[in-house]
């Protein structure tokens, strides 16, 4: 890891490229389909949208804790980190190659850095198809090696990629991170401000923020917004290995949890933590 330990570096201040490089062992990172290949989305310019040379996803191979790894980093600042044909295929394709290697006895540690609002509307069904392929690859791959994702903020992780996070072996979150299916603004737009006031930051973070998600079991590790802390969490996640049952396989547990909810009562984040903490 390249960062000198005496300097704390806020992970969320780094670009996707910088994040990927920072999390791989020092000197081992190598970007695939880098900026100069100019493999950009073919669909944006025809719609009058300025493309990015890497379509907002960085694929970096290298080592993590001395083991072969691949980091897939979504650039949240480009089109909200949305998944289009090229960006989605970079993620799906890399996971498929990691799977091929794993099936051949040479597993690669996959890390997903998710800063994404979900599917890119300007590419619609191409994004949808890519996300389904990402889902398929995660389920196949995680029986060989943990699939670990990091949701650090400031964009958070929503939409089809939140489903991807739900499939992951281990979800690492900072307090600033948010993980949910529909974003707060979309909920307010569709269901009204009484359903959710997206401007109420405390409410939003108490519902879908990192601390809440870890406390209620939807995420695994809460970390400081710091490169070294996240690197450490990744090493721990891979060290723990593949679990007997992934979170998204625990049907009995979650059906029981939902059945225990009294839908006539208002439920808030604190109350849910208290209810689920020891279950």
């Amino acid at each position, binding site marked *: 890891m390249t960062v000198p330990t005496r300097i704390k570096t806020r992970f969320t201040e780094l670009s996707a490229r910088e994040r990927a490089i920072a999390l791989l062992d020092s000197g081992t990172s190598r970007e695939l389909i880098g*900026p100069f290949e*100019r493999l950009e989305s073919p669909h944006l310019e025809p719609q009058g949208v300025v*493309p990015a*040379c890497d379509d907002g996803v960085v694929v970096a191979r290298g080592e993590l804790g001395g083991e072969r790894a691949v980091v897939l980093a979504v*650039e949240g*600042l480009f089109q909200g980190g949305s998944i289009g044909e090229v960006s989605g295929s970079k993620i799906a394709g890399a996971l498929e190659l990691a799977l091929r290697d794993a099936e051949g006895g040479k597993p690669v540690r996959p890390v997903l850095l998710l800063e994404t609002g979900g599917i890119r509307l300007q590419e619609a069904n191409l994004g949808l198809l890519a996300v389904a392929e990402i889902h398929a690859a995660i389920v196949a791959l995680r029986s060989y090696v943990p699939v670990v994702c990091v949701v650090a903020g400031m964009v958070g992780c929503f939409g089809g990629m939140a489903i991807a996070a739900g499939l992951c072996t281990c979800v690492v979150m900072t307090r600033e991170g948010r993980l949910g299916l529909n974003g707060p603004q979309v909920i307010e737009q569709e269901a009204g401000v009484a359903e959710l006031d997206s401007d109420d930051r405390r409410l939003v973070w108490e519902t879908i923020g990192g601390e809440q998600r870890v406390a209620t079991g939807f995420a695994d590790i809460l970390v400081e917004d710091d490169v070294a802390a996240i690197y450490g969490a990744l090493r721990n996640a891979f060290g723990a290995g593949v679990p007997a049952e992934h979170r998204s396989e625990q049907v009995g547990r979650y059906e029981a949890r939902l059945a225990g909810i009294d839908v006539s009562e208002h439920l808030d984040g604190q109350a849910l933590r208290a209810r689920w903490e020891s279950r």
Partner: protein
Amino acid sequence: METLSFDYPASQPVPRRAHVGVVGSGDLEVLLEPSPDEQAHVRVRTSADGFGEVWKAVLDRFFARNDLAVAVEINDSGATPGTVALRLAQAVEESRA
């Protein structure tokens, strides 16, 4: 979206290519590579239409100070002239790093 092109006479090479920036709101990315001829070639794709003169002013100034035979590609999402100048300078610095 607008696409703009600019060319300048230039003679100095750069040791390596460079990429800086992100196509985020108020920002831009710059890809900078050695030019195939004794000219600087710049292509700009920008989300903000109607600022051709402003781009020309920024780039004229940059290449007046930097005699570099480079091929530059800019993908811009509404950056200010100051930010554009900064990213260009960063790209040059990185090409010499």
